[in-house]
Each structure stands twice: as C-alpha cells, then as structure tokens.
C-alpha cells in the first residue's frame, strides 16, 4: 500500500501517526513544499519574541520519519491524476499512490490595495520563512503597520513589539479578534494590548499606499517602515479542483474523506461540519487539523475503529500573559460573569451549550468545551453550578463515577 501525504504540518503528521496506529506496513511518503523539519506554525510569533528557537519549534522529534518509517520529500505536487492514480511533482516526476491525503493548508490572503507594490518591506505572517524574513528587517527605530486585528495579526504584534519603534494595527471590523470575541471581550483584550503600547485603528481600511505611507478611508495618513498583511487566509484547494467537491475549502466528512474515492483531506484546506451549529465551515485550527489528519490516516489504513472527528471552532490564545479561550458559536441566551481581570460568557439554547468566551481565568475551560462537543443536555447536569464554576461536580453521581474511573457495572446498573 502506498500512502501519500501532501503537507508536513499538523494534519500531515496526524495522518502519519494515524496510519502507524493501524499498520506498520505500507510505504508512507510525505511531500512538503517547505524545506524544514515539521514545525509548529503558531510558534513563529514566539520565535520573533525570543521565546522559542528553531529547535524548540520542531513539532515532532528529529527521528520522526525514521520512527514512523516514512519518507519526506521536499517538493511540490503540481497535479493529481485520478484515472491513473498518479501525481506529478514540480520536478516533473510522476509517482503512484493508493491512498492520498491533501493537507496543503492555507495561504495568506493579500488584498488588492492600490499602491501595495510600492511598499518595499511588506510581509505576510504564516510560515517560518515569513517569520525569518520579517525578523531580518526588525529594528528599534522602525514603525510597523499591521493590517488585520485577528489572531495572526495580533500574535505578530505581540511577538515583535519589544523589537520595534511602534505598532499600529488596522482592521475593518469595529473590534479586535472579531471572529472569536464579542464586544465586551474584545474591549478588555484591546485595553490590555493598548496598555503595552500597541495602537489600533478600527472600523478602518487602507485606501492606498504611497511607498511608506498608508492613506486610510477617512483620509488619515500613517507613516510606517514595515507592513504586515494579516487580513485572513484562504484554503489551498487548487490541487483538487475538478477532482473533488470544493466550496470555500475542500469538503470532507467526519472521516476526512473527500467526494473522490481514495483521496482524503485534512486541516486548514478543508471545510467540514461544525457540530456546535451543524454548519459546514472552514475551521483552520491546529487541534482540528491534527485530529482530522489522524482520522484520515486511520481510515486510509483501513483501521477497524473507523475514526470520526467532531470538530468545533475553538481557540486558546494569549497576549502578554492575558489568556483567552473560546469555543463554539455565540448564539442563544447568555450567562455573564465578570471581574476586573476575568470575563466569561456562556451561550446556550435548546438545552445545549453552544459556545463560550473566557478571558483571564481559563482553568477547567475544557469542561465547557466537552459540553459543546458532546452536545450534553443541560437538564442532565447542574447547569447553574457549572456556569459559576466549571467542574465535574455538576454531573450526576453516576456520570462522575464513569469519568473518575468507576467499574463498568457501577455505571450500567
């Protein structure tokens, strides 16, 4: 059996580990268009901050390929031929596959802004090479303009703040982290970031660039030395164009199967069902990528326990010590809890927890995540208690026995 995995990040690694959970036989080939050992993409901001080096960024040990008996090729796949079950490398070679995983990730979206080409030092912030390029230009005198107050833009800001002469972040949305926070949560995080020296221009966009000056929609001009574009990412889907069903991302089911037999997809390039609201969406998050990849691997290898993934949007992120954890969707009634250093919102309807936002005191947040992922009926637990304080106490005695390891007959009877 020839397993081919296109992509060497979380989903690709998950697939290798998934296959090897099932079988030690079969050839695994991983193809990476980045000439690096598998690394943790979210750590690129920690690299610039000096909290990680390239060695610490390794997502798996140096012996990963050897341990899992797989071959890593630094190359780019340009074409897949479903009829002959072959794929083509940039080097021109055609190679066969039996089971193929597309784990090609996503690419930064570069908006078509007038005059963008006139900006000399402009960067995206997605890969190790992006980070190294940016790193080479940082200096204490330089002013940085970041377009996009999302996860990528703000982690970049945190990573470089101490090394530059000032940062302004611009976003079209009226609040920061608009995809994961509500107004109150965004305000709290924004104040924290402002207290560290980051400036924001919200509800704003750049009309045009004039070399090192950005002209905003309101006419204001901002001078800068370095531009970082972090307005969003787009799934890399072109390899499966006309081969499998594609919407915004490659459509996959809970087994990571595409609509094309023997071709699987996982990670940021895919679109799948969010079990917290039943909608099909791109959930480009590392945990989902790994678990989709692992499920793909197990299924590619014909594992007996057919693995499925219950994906939901979820994020854990921190800025200068302030922790933010969010999951699910923000629909339904709201439970609120707030203090000077902590912020909590739980969203629920129809006897289910739909989502939550927690800032500051994040411990035990996973208990809420599990309620969303499992679709736990809220009338089966002490919901008021768990709202105040996440814990196993809110479950019934029988469920606690199961969770803490009671004997099976204790639970079933």
């Amino acid at each position, binding site marked *: 059996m020839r397993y081919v995995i296109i992509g060497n990040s979380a989903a690709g690694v998950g697939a290798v580990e998934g296959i090897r959970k099932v079988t030690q036989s079969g050839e695994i080939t991983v193809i990476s268009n980045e000439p690096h050992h598998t690394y943790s993409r979210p750590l690129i901001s920690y690299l610039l901050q000096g909290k990680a080096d390239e060695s610490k960024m390794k*997502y798996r040990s140096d012996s990963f390929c050897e341990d899992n008996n797989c071959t890593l090729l630094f190359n780019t796949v340009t074409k897949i031929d479903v009829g002959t079950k072959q794929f083509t490398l940039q080097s021109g070679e055609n190679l066969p596959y039996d089971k193929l995983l597309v784990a090609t990730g996503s690419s930064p979206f570069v908006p078509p802004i007038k005059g963008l080409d006139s900006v000399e030092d402009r960067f995206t912030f997605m890969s190790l090479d992006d980070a190294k390029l940016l790193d080479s230009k940082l200096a204490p005198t330089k002013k940085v303009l970041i377009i996009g107050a999302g996860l990528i833009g703000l982690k970049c800001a945190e990573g470089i703040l101490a090394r530059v002469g000032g940062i302004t972040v611009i976003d079209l949305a009226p609040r920061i982290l608009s995809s994961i926070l509500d107004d109150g949560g965004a305000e709290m995080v924004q104040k924290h970031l402002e207290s560290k020296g980051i400036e924001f221009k919200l509800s704003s966009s750049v009309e045009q660039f004039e070399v090192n000056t950005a002209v905003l929609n309101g006419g204001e001009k901002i001078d800068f030395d370095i531009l970082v574009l972090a307005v969003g990412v787009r799934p890399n889907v072109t390899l499966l164009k006309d081969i499998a069903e594609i919407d915004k991302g490659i459509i996959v089911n809970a087994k990571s199967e595409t609509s094309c037999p023997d071709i699987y997809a996982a990670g940021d390039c895919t679109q799948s069902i969010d079990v917290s609201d039943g909608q099909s969406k791109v959930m480009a998050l590392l*945990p989902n990528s790994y678990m989709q990849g692992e499920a793909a691997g197990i299924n590619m290898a014909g594992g007996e326990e057919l693995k499925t993934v219950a994906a939901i949007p979820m994020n*854990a992120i921190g800025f200068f010590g302030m922790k933010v954890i969010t999951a699910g969707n923000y629909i339904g009634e709201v439970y609120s809890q707030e203090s000077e250093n902590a912020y909590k919102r739980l969203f629920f309807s129809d006897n289910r927890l739909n989502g939550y936002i927690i800032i500051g005191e994040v411990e035990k947040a*996973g208990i809420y995540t599990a309620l969303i992922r499992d679709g736990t009926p809220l009338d089966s637990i002490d919901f008021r208690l768990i709202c105040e304080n996440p814990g196993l*106490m809110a479950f019934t005695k029988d469920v*606690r026995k199961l969770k803490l*390891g*009671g004997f099976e007959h204790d639970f079933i009877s």
Partner: protein
Amino acid sequence: MKRVYVNEEWCLGCHLCEYYCAFAGSGEKDMARALREIKISPRIRVEEHNGISFAVNCRHCREPLCVKSCITGALTITDNAVISIDGERCVECCTCILSCPFGAISRTPNGGGAIQKCELCVKTESGIPACVQGCPNGAIVFEDAVGRTVV
C-alpha cells in the same frame, strides 16, 4: 496498566492528596519544609460542594485530546501510556486546558510559563503516586485499568 481512580464515597475532603502532590513535585525531602509558607499548586485538585468531595487528576485517556491538540508537541504519550508534559517545549498556550474534558490541566504557578499535570509520579522517586500514598481513607487508589470504564 495501573491508573489513579477516585471513589467519592470515601473522600473526606481533607485535601491531603493536594499536599502530597505538591510535596512530590517539590524535590524536597521534608514535607513541612517543602510546603512552608507557600500556596501549593498541586496537579490533583479536590472539588467540593454541598458535602460531596472528590479529587480530580489526569485520567491518562487512551485517546487524549490534550496530546492531539498540543500545538508544540510538548504533550506526549510515553511508552508506559502515561501522558507526559515537557515543560521546556511548552509555551503555555493553554490549548490543552481548552481541550481537557476533566479540567485536569493547570498553569504552573508564579508565571512559570508552562502547564502542569499529573504524570503518575513517574518523574519522582516513588513507584506509587504520592496522592494515593497520602490518602488516609483509600478514596484514591492506584489499580489496573482492566474492567474499568475507559475514557
């Protein structure tokens, strides 16, 4: 495979498990000296409400969401099926705290910049987890997983 199991009916709510855990992680020889004038940060935590109490620590799940979700690879399943944290590789992103359905992972105290969790005392000298040894009423046991529910 031996695991720590908790029977809430026997738990006195005395919190000794928390102190023994903190002591085991301290590297000190004398418990009173190790814990003097510090706010302990144990890897096992007692939940209490309305006269009910029980201790919660890592379940060492067979399909651990924390390990699968770890963004750096700092959380791994070791050869003896213990879920282990490499504090050097952890950046305290808290994705494991977001993922753990038991609330069994916490941040290291005093801005340590990593997370901590029960590792069944495999990194300490004792062969039996300290919480189990220290429980005065047999509410925390270290037993084989066979015949028990699997998480």
